[in-house]
Protein backbone atom coordinates (compact mmCIF):
# COMPACT_ATOMS: atom_id res chain seq x y z
CA UNK A 1 0.00 0.00 0.00
CA UNK A 2 1.45 3.38 -0.88
CA UNK A 3 1.39 6.32 1.46
CA UNK A 4 -1.51 8.30 -0.07
CA UNK A 5 -3.70 5.18 -0.10
CA UNK A 6 -3.12 4.55 3.59
CA UNK A 7 -3.79 8.20 4.35
CA UNK A 8 -7.03 7.84 2.47
CA UNK A 9 -7.94 4.76 4.46
CA UNK A 10 -7.22 6.68 7.65
CA UNK A 11 -9.60 9.41 6.49
CA UNK A 12 -12.26 6.82 5.73
CA UNK A 13 -11.92 5.31 9.19
CA UNK A 14 -12.14 8.75 10.84
CA UNK A 15 -15.23 9.53 8.82
CA UNK A 16 -16.84 6.26 9.79
CA UNK A 17 -15.94 6.68 13.45
CA UNK A 18 -17.44 10.18 13.40
CA UNK A 19 -20.70 9.00 11.84
CA UNK A 20 -21.27 5.70 13.59
CA UNK A 21 -19.18 5.88 16.70
CA UNK A 22 -17.86 2.39 15.91
CA UNK A 23 -15.27 1.28 13.43
CA UNK A 24 -15.48 -2.40 12.65
CA UNK A 25 -12.53 -4.05 10.96
CA UNK A 26 -9.11 -5.48 11.57
CA UNK A 27 -7.41 -4.01 14.60
CA UNK A 28 -10.29 -1.73 15.42
CA UNK A 29 -13.01 -4.30 15.83
CA UNK A 30 -13.97 -3.36 19.35
CA UNK A 31 -16.52 -0.80 20.36
CA UNK A 32 -14.88 2.24 21.81
CA UNK A 33 -11.26 1.45 21.16
CA UNK A 34 -8.49 -0.67 19.80
CA UNK A 35 -8.35 -3.09 22.71
CA UNK A 36 -8.69 -6.60 21.28
CA UNK A 37 -11.24 -8.92 22.86
CA UNK A 38 -10.18 -12.04 20.97
CA UNK A 39 -7.16 -13.98 22.14
CA UNK A 40 -4.09 -13.19 20.09
CA UNK A 41 -2.33 -10.10 18.86
CA UNK A 42 -4.64 -8.21 16.49
CA UNK A 43 -5.38 -11.43 14.62
CA UNK A 44 -1.75 -11.78 13.52
CA UNK A 45 -0.73 -15.37 12.74
CA UNK A 46 1.17 -17.15 15.53
CA UNK A 47 2.91 -19.60 13.21
CA UNK A 48 3.85 -18.87 9.60
CA UNK A 49 1.71 -20.36 6.82
CA UNK A 50 3.60 -22.39 4.20
CA UNK A 51 5.28 -20.42 1.40
CA UNK A 52 4.83 -23.33 -1.02
CA UNK A 53 3.05 -22.68 -4.32
CA UNK A 54 1.34 -24.85 -6.98
CA UNK A 55 4.43 -27.01 -7.56
CA UNK A 56 4.16 -28.79 -4.22
CA UNK A 57 0.64 -30.29 -4.52
CA UNK A 58 1.52 -31.33 -8.08
CA UNK A 59 4.72 -32.93 -6.78
CA UNK A 60 2.74 -34.79 -4.10
CA UNK A 61 0.46 -36.04 -6.88
CA UNK A 62 3.17 -37.15 -9.33
CA UNK A 63 5.49 -38.43 -6.60
CA UNK A 64 2.65 -40.62 -5.30
CA UNK A 65 1.93 -41.97 -8.78
CA UNK A 66 5.62 -42.63 -9.47
CA UNK A 67 6.34 -44.38 -6.20
CA UNK A 68 3.35 -46.66 -6.26
CA UNK A 69 3.81 -47.41 -10.00
CA UNK A 70 7.05 -49.10 -9.05
CA UNK A 71 5.17 -51.28 -6.56
CA UNK A 72 2.72 -52.28 -9.29
CA UNK A 73 5.67 -52.95 -11.62
CA UNK A 74 7.25 -55.26 -9.06
CA UNK A 75 4.03 -57.25 -8.61
CA UNK A 76 3.53 -57.34 -12.39
CA UNK A 77 7.06 -58.69 -12.94
CA UNK A 78 6.56 -61.32 -10.25
CA UNK A 79 3.27 -62.49 -11.76
CA UNK A 80 4.43 -62.25 -15.41
CA UNK A 81 2.40 -59.27 -16.63
CA UNK A 82 5.30 -57.89 -18.66
CA UNK A 83 3.28 -55.23 -20.50
CA UNK A 84 1.90 -53.81 -17.26
CA UNK A 85 5.36 -53.89 -15.70
CA UNK A 86 6.88 -51.96 -18.60
CA UNK A 87 4.12 -49.33 -18.62
CA UNK A 88 4.38 -48.97 -14.83
CA UNK A 89 8.15 -48.50 -14.97
CA UNK A 90 7.81 -45.86 -17.70
CA UNK A 91 5.30 -44.10 -15.47
CA UNK A 92 7.61 -44.40 -12.45
CA UNK A 93 10.60 -43.05 -14.34
CA UNK A 94 8.81 -40.15 -16.04
CA UNK A 95 6.80 -39.03 -12.99
CA UNK A 96 9.49 -39.85 -10.41
CA UNK A 97 12.79 -39.12 -12.08
CA UNK A 98 11.79 -36.23 -14.36
CA UNK A 99 8.58 -34.46 -13.27
CA UNK A 100 9.07 -34.69 -9.50
CA UNK A 101 12.61 -33.25 -9.37
CA UNK A 102 11.64 -30.47 -11.79
CA UNK A 103 8.65 -29.49 -9.65
CA UNK A 104 10.69 -29.60 -6.45
CA UNK A 105 13.49 -27.50 -7.91
CA UNK A 106 11.00 -24.96 -9.31
CA UNK A 107 9.51 -24.48 -5.87
CA UNK A 108 12.83 -23.62 -4.23
CA UNK A 109 13.51 -19.99 -3.43
CA UNK A 110 16.97 -20.49 -4.93
CA UNK A 111 16.64 -23.27 -7.54
CA UNK A 112 20.33 -23.14 -8.51
CA UNK A 113 21.27 -24.38 -5.04
CA UNK A 114 19.08 -27.52 -5.26
CA UNK A 115 22.10 -29.83 -4.87
CA UNK A 116 22.55 -28.52 -1.31
CA UNK A 117 19.67 -30.89 -0.49
CA UNK A 118 22.23 -33.70 -0.66
CA UNK A 119 24.79 -31.92 1.53
CA UNK A 120 23.64 -33.62 4.72
CA UNK A 121 21.55 -36.62 5.77
CA UNK A 122 19.17 -35.78 8.62
CA UNK A 123 16.78 -38.50 9.68
CA UNK A 124 14.90 -36.03 11.89
CA UNK A 125 14.07 -33.84 8.90
CA UNK A 126 11.32 -35.24 6.67
CA UNK A 127 12.46 -32.82 3.94
CA UNK A 128 15.99 -34.23 4.02
CA UNK A 129 14.69 -37.80 4.05
CA UNK A 130 12.42 -36.93 1.13
CA UNK A 131 15.31 -35.57 -0.92
CA UNK A 132 17.28 -38.79 -0.34
CA UNK A 133 14.25 -41.01 -0.98
CA UNK A 134 13.56 -39.25 -4.29
CA UNK A 135 17.24 -39.56 -5.28
CA UNK A 136 17.35 -43.25 -4.40
CA UNK A 137 14.07 -43.83 -6.21
CA UNK A 138 15.36 -42.17 -9.38
CA UNK A 139 18.60 -44.14 -9.11
CA UNK A 140 16.56 -47.37 -9.08
CA UNK A 141 13.68 -46.54 -11.41
CA UNK A 142 15.73 -45.32 -14.38
CA UNK A 143 18.19 -48.26 -14.60
CA UNK A 144 15.29 -50.60 -13.74
CA UNK A 145 13.33 -49.30 -16.72
CA UNK A 146 16.34 -49.51 -19.06
CA UNK A 147 17.18 -53.07 -17.98
CA UNK A 148 13.53 -54.13 -18.30
CA UNK A 149 13.18 -52.64 -21.78
CA UNK A 150 16.45 -54.18 -23.00
CA UNK A 151 15.33 -57.53 -21.65
CA UNK A 152 11.81 -57.22 -23.10
CA UNK A 153 13.12 -56.38 -26.56
CA UNK A 154 15.71 -59.20 -26.37
CA UNK A 155 18.46 -56.77 -27.44
CA UNK A 156 21.14 -59.03 -26.01
CA UNK A 157 21.18 -62.79 -25.89
CA UNK A 158 22.41 -65.49 -23.58
CA UNK A 159 24.10 -64.69 -20.30
CA UNK A 160 23.94 -60.94 -20.79
CA UNK A 161 20.18 -61.10 -21.16
CA UNK A 162 19.88 -63.21 -18.04
CA UNK A 163 22.03 -60.68 -16.24
CA UNK A 164 19.80 -57.85 -17.48
CA UNK A 165 16.71 -59.69 -16.31
CA UNK A 166 18.30 -60.13 -12.89
CA UNK A 167 19.36 -56.46 -12.74
CA UNK A 168 15.87 -55.37 -13.76
CA UNK A 169 14.46 -57.42 -10.90
CA UNK A 170 16.84 -55.91 -8.35
CA UNK A 171 16.32 -52.32 -9.52
CA UNK A 172 12.53 -52.69 -9.70
CA UNK A 173 12.55 -54.15 -6.19
CA UNK A 174 14.59 -51.16 -5.00
CA UNK A 175 12.29 -48.76 -6.83
CA UNK A 176 9.27 -50.40 -5.20
CA UNK A 177 10.71 -50.10 -1.69
CA UNK A 178 11.80 -46.47 -2.13
CA UNK A 179 8.57 -45.88 -4.07
CA UNK A 180 6.35 -46.73 -1.11
CA UNK A 181 8.38 -44.26 0.95
CA UNK A 182 8.22 -41.63 -1.81
CA UNK A 183 4.43 -41.87 -1.88
CA UNK A 184 4.00 -41.75 1.91
CA UNK A 185 6.77 -39.50 3.26
CA UNK A 186 4.96 -36.42 1.94
CA UNK A 187 2.32 -37.06 4.61
CA UNK A 188 5.06 -37.09 7.25
CA UNK A 189 6.54 -33.95 5.69
CA UNK A 190 3.48 -31.83 6.33
CA UNK A 191 2.32 -33.84 9.36
CA UNK A 192 5.46 -33.05 11.39
CA UNK A 193 5.15 -29.25 11.28
CA UNK A 194 3.82 -26.50 13.53
CA UNK A 195 0.65 -26.06 11.40
CA UNK A 196 -2.28 -27.23 13.60
CA UNK A 197 -4.56 -28.69 10.90
CA UNK A 198 -1.58 -30.67 9.59
CA UNK A 199 -0.01 -32.06 12.75
CA UNK A 200 -3.37 -33.01 14.23
CA UNK A 201 -3.82 -35.36 11.25
CA UNK A 202 -0.26 -36.64 11.03
CA UNK A 203 -1.34 -40.30 11.09
CA UNK A 204 -4.06 -39.81 8.49
CA UNK A 205 -1.88 -37.89 6.04
CA UNK A 206 0.67 -40.61 5.14
CA UNK A 207 -2.16 -43.17 4.79
CA UNK A 208 -4.10 -40.79 2.57
CA UNK A 209 -1.15 -39.74 0.40
CA UNK A 210 0.20 -43.28 0.03
CA UNK A 211 -3.15 -44.83 -0.80
CA UNK A 212 -4.07 -42.00 -3.16
CA UNK A 213 -0.72 -42.61 -4.89
CA UNK A 214 -1.44 -46.33 -5.28
CA UNK A 215 -4.95 -45.74 -6.61
CA UNK A 216 -3.70 -43.01 -8.97
CA UNK A 217 -0.94 -45.23 -10.37
CA UNK A 218 -3.45 -48.01 -11.07
CA UNK A 219 -5.89 -45.46 -12.53
CA UNK A 220 -3.30 -44.07 -14.96
CA UNK A 221 -2.33 -47.57 -16.10
CA UNK A 222 -6.02 -48.44 -16.61
CA UNK A 223 -6.56 -45.29 -18.65
CA UNK A 224 -3.57 -46.30 -20.81
CA UNK A 225 -5.50 -49.43 -21.72
CA UNK A 226 -4.24 -51.99 -19.22
CA UNK A 227 -7.66 -53.21 -18.18
CA UNK A 228 -6.70 -56.19 -16.04
CA UNK A 229 -8.52 -57.37 -12.97
CA UNK A 230 -5.48 -56.78 -10.72
CA UNK A 231 -5.58 -53.04 -11.40
CA UNK A 232 -9.34 -53.06 -10.87
CA UNK A 233 -8.79 -54.75 -7.51
CA UNK A 234 -6.22 -52.07 -6.55
CA UNK A 235 -8.77 -49.45 -7.61
CA UNK A 236 -11.35 -50.99 -5.28
CA UNK A 237 -8.85 -51.19 -2.43
CA UNK A 238 -7.69 -47.57 -2.78
CA UNK A 239 -11.21 -46.17 -3.09
CA UNK A 240 -12.34 -48.20 -0.07
CA UNK A 241 -9.44 -46.92 2.06
CA UNK A 242 -10.10 -43.34 0.92
CA UNK A 243 -13.79 -43.73 1.84
CA UNK A 244 -12.76 -44.88 5.31
CA UNK A 245 -10.40 -41.89 5.60
CA UNK A 246 -13.21 -39.52 4.62
CA UNK A 247 -15.32 -40.93 7.43
CA UNK A 248 -12.37 -40.71 9.85
CA UNK A 249 -11.74 -37.09 8.87
CA UNK A 250 -15.42 -36.22 9.35
CA UNK A 251 -15.57 -37.85 12.77
CA UNK A 252 -12.16 -36.87 14.14
CA UNK A 253 -12.80 -33.12 14.41
CA UNK A 254 -10.77 -30.82 16.64
CA UNK A 255 -12.97 -27.73 16.78
CA UNK A 256 -11.23 -24.45 16.05
CA UNK A 257 -7.85 -26.19 15.88
CA UNK A 258 -8.49 -27.87 12.52
CA UNK A 259 -11.44 -25.84 11.28
CA UNK A 260 -9.52 -25.14 8.04
CA UNK A 261 -10.43 -28.73 7.08
CA UNK A 262 -14.12 -28.31 7.74
CA UNK A 263 -14.71 -24.68 6.79
CA UNK A 264 -13.50 -22.23 4.15
CA UNK A 265 -12.71 -23.05 0.54
CA UNK A 266 -9.80 -25.20 1.75
CA UNK A 267 -12.32 -27.45 3.51
CA UNK A 268 -14.36 -27.76 0.32
CA UNK A 269 -11.28 -28.80 -1.64
CA UNK A 270 -10.56 -31.57 0.85
CA UNK A 271 -14.16 -32.77 0.81
CA UNK A 272 -14.54 -32.67 -2.99
CA UNK A 273 -11.24 -34.48 -3.38
CA UNK A 274 -12.11 -37.14 -0.85
CA UNK A 275 -15.58 -37.74 -2.29
CA UNK A 276 -14.14 -38.10 -5.80
CA UNK A 277 -11.42 -40.56 -4.84
CA UNK A 278 -13.42 -42.26 -2.10
CA UNK A 279 -17.14 -43.07 -2.35
CA UNK A 280 -17.69 -41.87 -5.94
CA UNK A 281 -14.77 -43.90 -7.35
CA UNK A 282 -15.98 -46.89 -5.33
CA UNK A 283 -19.55 -46.66 -6.65
CA UNK A 284 -18.43 -46.16 -10.27
CA UNK A 285 -16.13 -49.16 -10.01
CA UNK A 286 -18.90 -51.21 -8.41
CA UNK A 287 -21.09 -50.60 -11.46
CA UNK A 288 -18.26 -51.62 -13.77
CA UNK A 289 -17.44 -48.10 -14.96
CA UNK A 290 -13.70 -48.56 -14.53
CA UNK A 291 -12.56 -45.66 -16.71
CA UNK A 292 -14.86 -43.19 -15.01
CA UNK A 293 -13.77 -44.49 -11.63
CA UNK A 294 -10.13 -44.01 -12.66
CA UNK A 295 -10.76 -40.44 -13.83
CA UNK A 296 -12.74 -39.64 -10.68
CA UNK A 297 -9.98 -41.05 -8.49
CA UNK A 298 -7.24 -39.11 -10.29
CA UNK A 299 -9.08 -35.80 -10.08
CA UNK A 300 -9.88 -36.48 -6.44
CA UNK A 301 -6.26 -37.30 -5.63
CA UNK A 302 -5.06 -34.07 -7.25
CA UNK A 303 -7.78 -31.87 -5.71
CA UNK A 304 -7.22 -33.22 -2.21
CA UNK A 305 -3.44 -32.58 -2.50
CA UNK A 306 -4.19 -28.98 -3.50
CA UNK A 307 -6.69 -28.91 -0.64
CA UNK A 308 -4.19 -30.04 1.99
CA UNK A 309 -1.74 -27.29 1.03
CA UNK A 310 -4.60 -24.78 1.08
CA UNK A 311 -5.58 -26.06 4.52
CA UNK A 312 -2.04 -25.40 5.72
CA UNK A 313 -2.20 -21.82 4.48
CA UNK A 314 -5.55 -21.18 6.19
CA UNK A 315 -4.65 -22.98 9.41
CA UNK A 316 -1.21 -21.37 9.64
CA UNK A 317 -2.71 -17.89 9.27
CA UNK A 318 -5.30 -18.53 11.99
CA UNK A 319 -3.96 -17.69 15.48
CA UNK A 320 -6.97 -19.21 17.23
CA UNK A 321 -6.29 -22.60 15.63
CA UNK A 322 -2.81 -22.59 17.19
CA UNK A 323 -4.16 -21.74 20.65
CA UNK A 324 -6.96 -24.32 20.31
CA UNK A 325 -4.52 -27.04 19.17
CA UNK A 326 -2.63 -26.88 22.47
CA UNK A 327 -5.40 -28.91 24.07
CA UNK A 328 -4.65 -31.92 21.90
Amino acid at each position, binding site marked *: *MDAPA*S*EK*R*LEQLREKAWQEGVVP*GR*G*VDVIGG*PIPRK*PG*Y*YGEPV*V*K*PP*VWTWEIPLYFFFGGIAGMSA*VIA*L*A*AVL*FHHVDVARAAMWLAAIAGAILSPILLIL*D*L*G*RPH*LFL*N*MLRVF*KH*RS*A*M*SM*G*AWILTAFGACAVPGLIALELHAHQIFAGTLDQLLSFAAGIFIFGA*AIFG*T*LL*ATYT*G*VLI*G*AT*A*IPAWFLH*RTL*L*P*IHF*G*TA*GLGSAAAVLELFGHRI*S*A*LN*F*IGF*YAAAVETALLIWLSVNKHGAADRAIHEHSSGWLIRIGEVLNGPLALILRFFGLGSFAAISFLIGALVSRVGWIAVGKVSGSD*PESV*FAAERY
Partner: protein
Amino acid sequence: MIGEGTHSTNQRRHNYVQERVEVGFFTDPTVCIGCKACEVACKEWNEVPDDGFTWSGNSYDNTGHLGASTWRHVLFLEQDRQKGNQLVGSHSLGSGDGEDPFRWVFLSDVCKHCEEAGCLEACPTGSIVRTEVGSVLVQNDVCNGCGYCVVSCPFGVIDRRPEPLPNAGGAFKCTFCYDRQKSGLVPACAKVCPTESIVFGRLDDLRARASQRVQELKQNGYDDAQLYDPQETSVRGIHAFFLILGEPEAYGLPPKPQVPTIYLKSAWTAAFATAIASIIATLVAFAFSS
Protein backbone atom coordinates in the same frame (compact mmCIF):
# COMPACT_ATOMS: atom_id res chain seq x y z
CA MET B 1 21.13 -3.64 34.94
CA ILE B 2 19.67 -0.17 35.02
CA GLY B 3 22.02 2.22 36.74
CA GLU B 4 25.10 0.19 35.92
CA GLY B 5 25.95 2.54 33.08
CA THR B 6 28.96 1.43 31.10
CA HIS B 7 29.31 -1.60 33.39
CA SER B 8 26.01 -3.01 32.14
CA THR B 9 26.30 -6.29 30.22
CA ASN B 10 24.66 -4.41 27.35
CA GLN B 11 27.69 -2.14 27.06
CA ARG B 12 30.67 -4.30 28.03
CA ARG B 13 32.84 -6.13 25.52
CA HIS B 14 32.86 -9.89 26.00
CA ASN B 15 34.41 -13.18 24.86
CA TYR B 16 31.29 -15.35 25.05
CA VAL B 17 31.86 -16.91 21.60
CA GLN B 18 35.47 -17.80 22.39
CA GLU B 19 34.54 -19.06 25.86
CA ARG B 20 31.50 -20.95 24.54
CA VAL B 21 29.17 -19.41 27.11
CA GLU B 22 25.41 -19.78 26.63
CA VAL B 23 23.98 -16.30 26.15
CA GLY B 24 20.51 -14.89 25.80
CA PHE B 25 18.18 -11.95 25.62
CA PHE B 26 15.88 -11.07 28.48
CA THR B 27 13.19 -8.69 27.26
CA ASP B 28 11.18 -6.82 29.87
CA PRO B 29 8.11 -4.91 28.61
CA THR B 30 7.60 -3.06 31.89
CA VAL B 31 10.51 -0.75 31.10
CA CYS B 32 10.00 -0.64 27.32
CA ILE B 33 8.96 2.77 25.99
CA GLY B 34 8.08 1.52 22.49
CA CYS B 35 10.73 3.63 20.75
CA LYS B 36 11.55 0.88 18.21
CA ALA B 37 15.25 1.74 18.32
CA CYS B 38 15.88 -2.04 18.42
CA GLU B 39 14.02 -2.51 15.13
CA VAL B 40 16.05 0.28 13.54
CA ALA B 41 19.42 -0.81 14.93
CA CYS B 42 18.77 -4.38 13.78
CA LYS B 43 17.92 -3.24 10.27
CA GLU B 44 20.90 -0.96 10.03
CA TRP B 45 23.52 -3.36 11.32
CA ASN B 46 22.24 -6.41 9.44
CA GLU B 47 21.31 -4.49 6.27
CA VAL B 48 17.78 -5.90 6.40
CA PRO B 49 15.60 -4.47 3.61
CA ASP B 50 12.36 -2.64 4.34
CA ASP B 51 9.31 -4.73 5.07
CA GLY B 52 6.71 -2.57 3.36
CA PHE B 53 5.15 0.75 4.27
CA THR B 54 1.67 -0.20 5.33
CA TRP B 55 -0.69 1.30 7.82
CA SER B 56 -2.08 -1.55 9.89
CA GLY B 57 -4.57 0.32 12.05
CA ASN B 58 -3.40 -1.84 14.97
CA SER B 59 -2.37 0.66 17.61
CA TYR B 60 0.99 2.21 16.66
CA ASP B 61 2.34 -1.04 15.29
CA ASN B 62 2.70 -0.98 11.54
CA THR B 63 5.32 -3.73 11.50
CA GLY B 64 2.83 -6.45 12.43
CA HIS B 65 4.93 -9.54 12.90
CA LEU B 66 8.41 -11.00 12.72
CA GLY B 67 9.48 -12.16 9.28
CA ALA B 68 12.26 -12.51 6.77
CA SER B 69 12.88 -8.76 6.83
CA THR B 70 11.79 -8.05 10.42
CA TRP B 71 14.05 -9.57 13.05
CA ARG B 72 12.96 -7.35 15.95
CA HIS B 73 9.34 -6.31 16.27
CA VAL B 74 7.89 -4.09 18.96
CA LEU B 75 4.36 -5.13 19.91
CA PHE B 76 1.94 -2.42 21.03
CA LEU B 77 -0.70 -3.74 23.39
CA GLU B 78 -3.50 -1.56 24.64
CA GLN B 79 -5.14 -3.28 27.57
CA ASP B 80 -8.12 -2.31 29.71
CA ARG B 81 -6.26 -3.46 32.78
CA GLN B 82 -4.98 -1.63 35.81
CA LYS B 83 -1.41 -0.54 35.92
CA GLY B 84 0.68 -1.54 38.87
CA ASN B 85 1.95 1.02 41.34
CA GLN B 86 4.12 3.55 39.59
CA LEU B 87 7.44 3.84 41.30
CA VAL B 88 8.21 7.36 40.17
CA GLY B 89 6.42 10.43 38.94
CA SER B 90 3.02 11.89 39.58
CA HIS B 91 1.26 8.52 39.68
CA SER B 92 3.38 7.24 42.51
CA LEU B 93 0.59 7.80 45.04
CA GLY B 94 -1.89 5.37 43.59
CA SER B 95 -2.11 2.42 41.29
CA GLY B 96 -3.19 4.67 38.43
CA ASP B 97 -6.52 2.95 37.88
CA GLY B 98 -9.48 5.24 37.64
CA GLU B 99 -12.93 4.38 36.37
CA ASP B 100 -11.45 3.54 32.99
CA PRO B 101 -8.42 1.37 33.65
CA PHE B 102 -5.90 1.34 30.85
CA ARG B 103 -2.32 0.39 30.33
CA TRP B 104 0.17 0.28 27.52
CA VAL B 105 2.45 -2.70 27.11
CA PHE B 106 5.29 -2.68 24.61
CA LEU B 107 7.29 -5.81 23.99
CA SER B 108 10.18 -6.23 21.61
CA ASP B 109 9.70 -9.67 20.04
CA VAL B 110 12.58 -11.60 18.49
CA CYS B 111 13.64 -15.10 17.43
CA LYS B 112 13.58 -17.27 20.55
CA HIS B 113 16.68 -19.32 19.68
CA CYS B 114 15.09 -22.51 21.02
CA GLU B 115 16.99 -25.20 22.87
CA GLU B 116 15.23 -27.70 20.54
CA ALA B 117 14.80 -25.59 17.42
CA GLY B 118 12.17 -26.65 14.90
CA CYS B 119 13.82 -24.76 12.03
CA LEU B 120 17.23 -26.28 12.72
CA GLU B 121 15.82 -29.81 12.87
CA ALA B 122 13.82 -29.29 9.67
CA CYS B 123 16.56 -27.75 7.52
CA PRO B 124 17.53 -30.30 4.80
CA THR B 125 20.68 -28.47 3.66
CA GLY B 126 22.40 -28.04 7.00
CA SER B 127 22.19 -24.31 6.44
CA ILE B 128 20.78 -23.73 9.94
CA VAL B 129 23.31 -24.43 12.67
CA ARG B 130 23.79 -24.01 16.43
CA THR B 131 26.52 -21.55 17.39
CA GLU B 132 29.00 -21.65 20.25
CA VAL B 133 26.78 -19.37 22.32
CA GLY B 134 23.71 -21.57 21.88
CA SER B 135 21.96 -19.40 19.30
CA VAL B 136 20.44 -20.67 16.04
CA LEU B 137 22.02 -19.26 12.87
CA VAL B 138 20.98 -19.45 9.20
CA GLN B 139 24.02 -19.65 6.90
CA ASN B 140 22.56 -17.71 4.05
CA ASP B 141 24.95 -18.90 1.34
CA VAL B 142 23.88 -22.52 1.96
CA CYS B 143 20.09 -22.02 2.18
CA ASN B 144 18.30 -23.05 -1.04
CA GLY B 145 14.92 -21.69 0.04
CA CYS B 146 12.97 -24.95 0.41
CA GLY B 147 10.68 -23.30 2.94
CA TYR B 148 10.47 -26.22 5.37
CA CYS B 149 11.82 -24.22 8.31
CA VAL B 150 8.96 -21.74 7.83
CA VAL B 151 6.30 -24.31 8.77
CA SER B 152 8.53 -25.93 11.40
CA CYS B 153 8.96 -22.92 13.68
CA PRO B 154 6.44 -23.09 16.56
CA PHE B 155 6.76 -19.31 17.01
CA GLY B 156 6.29 -18.24 13.37
CA VAL B 157 9.62 -16.40 13.31
CA ILE B 158 11.57 -17.52 10.25
CA ASP B 159 10.27 -16.78 6.76
CA ARG B 160 11.39 -16.90 3.14
CA ARG B 161 12.22 -13.49 1.68
CA PRO B 162 10.12 -12.72 -1.40
CA GLU B 163 11.22 -11.10 -4.67
CA PRO B 164 12.33 -8.43 -5.47
CA LEU B 165 14.14 -7.81 -2.18
CA PRO B 166 17.90 -8.32 -1.95
CA ASN B 167 18.92 -11.94 -1.28
CA ALA B 168 15.36 -13.05 -2.13
CA GLY B 169 14.46 -16.72 -1.96
CA GLY B 170 16.41 -17.56 1.18
CA ALA B 171 15.11 -18.00 4.71
CA PHE B 172 15.95 -15.24 7.16
CA LYS B 173 15.62 -14.53 10.85
CA CYS B 174 17.50 -12.96 13.74
CA THR B 175 21.20 -13.94 13.72
CA PHE B 176 21.67 -12.94 17.37
CA CYS B 177 24.24 -10.63 15.75
CA TYR B 178 26.64 -13.57 15.61
CA ASP B 179 29.06 -11.45 13.60
CA ARG B 180 29.13 -8.79 16.31
CA GLN B 181 29.38 -11.38 19.08
CA LYS B 182 32.40 -13.02 17.45
CA SER B 183 34.15 -9.65 17.75
CA GLY B 184 33.13 -9.23 21.37
CA LEU B 185 30.31 -6.80 20.64
CA VAL B 186 26.79 -6.88 22.05
CA PRO B 187 23.88 -7.52 19.61
CA ALA B 188 22.75 -4.26 18.02
CA CYS B 189 19.23 -4.25 19.53
CA ALA B 190 20.47 -4.68 23.11
CA LYS B 191 23.30 -2.22 22.62
CA VAL B 192 20.92 0.50 21.49
CA CYS B 193 18.00 -0.12 23.88
CA PRO B 194 17.73 3.13 25.88
CA THR B 195 15.92 1.65 28.88
CA GLU B 196 17.60 -1.76 28.90
CA SER B 197 14.27 -3.41 28.28
CA ILE B 198 16.36 -5.76 26.15
CA VAL B 199 19.22 -7.17 28.18
CA PHE B 200 21.95 -9.29 26.65
CA GLY B 201 24.12 -11.51 28.80
CA ARG B 202 24.87 -14.97 30.14
CA LEU B 203 21.76 -17.12 30.07
CA ASP B 204 22.00 -18.24 33.71
CA ASP B 205 22.53 -14.66 34.92
CA LEU B 206 19.56 -13.48 32.88
CA ARG B 207 17.28 -16.22 34.22
CA ALA B 208 18.16 -15.29 37.80
CA ARG B 209 17.68 -11.62 37.07
CA ALA B 210 14.33 -12.27 35.37
CA SER B 211 12.81 -14.17 38.28
CA GLN B 212 13.99 -11.43 40.63
CA ARG B 213 12.31 -8.86 38.40
CA VAL B 214 9.02 -10.79 38.44
CA GLN B 215 9.07 -10.80 42.26
CA GLU B 216 9.78 -7.06 42.28
CA LEU B 217 6.87 -6.36 39.92
CA LYS B 218 4.45 -8.51 41.89
CA GLN B 219 5.33 -6.61 45.05
CA ASN B 220 4.52 -3.43 43.19
CA GLY B 221 1.06 -4.46 42.14
CA TYR B 222 1.68 -6.11 38.78
CA ASP B 223 -0.15 -9.28 39.79
CA ASP B 224 -0.15 -10.79 36.31
CA ALA B 225 3.60 -10.54 35.72
CA GLN B 226 5.14 -13.86 34.66
CA LEU B 227 8.06 -15.22 32.72
CA TYR B 228 7.58 -16.62 29.23
CA ASP B 229 10.28 -19.28 29.03
CA PRO B 230 8.72 -22.61 28.02
CA GLN B 231 11.16 -25.08 29.55
CA GLU B 232 8.45 -27.66 30.25
CA THR B 233 7.51 -28.30 26.61
CA SER B 234 9.50 -30.13 23.93
CA VAL B 235 11.14 -26.80 22.99
CA ARG B 236 13.04 -27.18 26.32
CA GLY B 237 13.58 -23.50 26.92
CA ILE B 238 14.49 -20.51 24.82
CA HIS B 239 17.53 -18.27 24.67
CA ALA B 240 15.47 -15.12 24.15
CA PHE B 241 12.86 -15.13 26.87
CA PHE B 242 10.36 -12.54 27.99
CA LEU B 243 8.67 -11.12 31.00
CA ILE B 244 5.01 -10.65 30.17
CA LEU B 245 2.03 -9.05 31.84
CA GLY B 246 -1.03 -11.22 31.36
CA GLU B 247 -1.36 -14.24 29.13
CA PRO B 248 1.07 -15.21 26.36
CA GLU B 249 -1.77 -15.36 23.79
CA ALA B 250 -2.12 -11.56 23.91
CA TYR B 251 1.46 -11.28 22.66
CA GLY B 252 0.89 -13.82 19.89
CA LEU B 253 3.07 -16.28 21.82
CA PRO B 254 1.93 -19.93 21.90
CA PRO B 255 1.38 -20.99 25.54
CA LYS B 256 2.79 -24.46 24.91
CA PRO B 257 5.12 -24.36 21.91
CA GLN B 258 6.18 -27.80 20.64
CA VAL B 259 9.07 -28.69 18.36
CA PRO B 260 7.45 -30.53 15.40
CA THR B 261 9.93 -33.44 15.54
CA ILE B 262 7.79 -34.91 18.34
CA TYR B 263 5.20 -35.73 15.67
CA LEU B 264 7.67 -37.73 13.55
CA LYS B 265 7.22 -41.07 15.30
CA SER B 266 3.48 -41.39 14.79
CA ALA B 267 3.65 -39.98 11.25
CA TRP B 268 6.44 -42.36 10.14
CA THR B 269 4.63 -45.28 11.76
CA ALA B 270 1.58 -44.48 9.64
CA ALA B 271 3.81 -44.11 6.58
CA PHE B 272 5.50 -47.50 7.08
CA ALA B 273 2.16 -49.17 7.76
CA THR B 274 0.77 -47.68 4.54
CA ALA B 275 3.88 -48.78 2.62
CA ILE B 276 3.50 -52.38 3.80
CA ALA B 277 -0.29 -52.40 3.26
CA SER B 278 0.15 -51.07 -0.29
CA ILE B 279 2.71 -53.74 -1.19
CA ILE B 280 0.53 -56.51 0.24
CA ALA B 281 -2.63 -55.19 -1.47
CA THR B 282 -0.81 -55.00 -4.83
CA LEU B 283 0.69 -58.48 -4.50
CA VAL B 284 -2.69 -59.92 -3.50
CA ALA B 285 -4.35 -58.16 -6.45
CA PHE B 286 -1.91 -59.71 -8.93
CA ALA B 287 -1.82 -63.09 -7.21
CA PHE B 288 -5.57 -63.56 -7.39
CA SER B 289 -5.93 -62.34 -10.95
CA SER B 290 -3.12 -64.45 -12.41
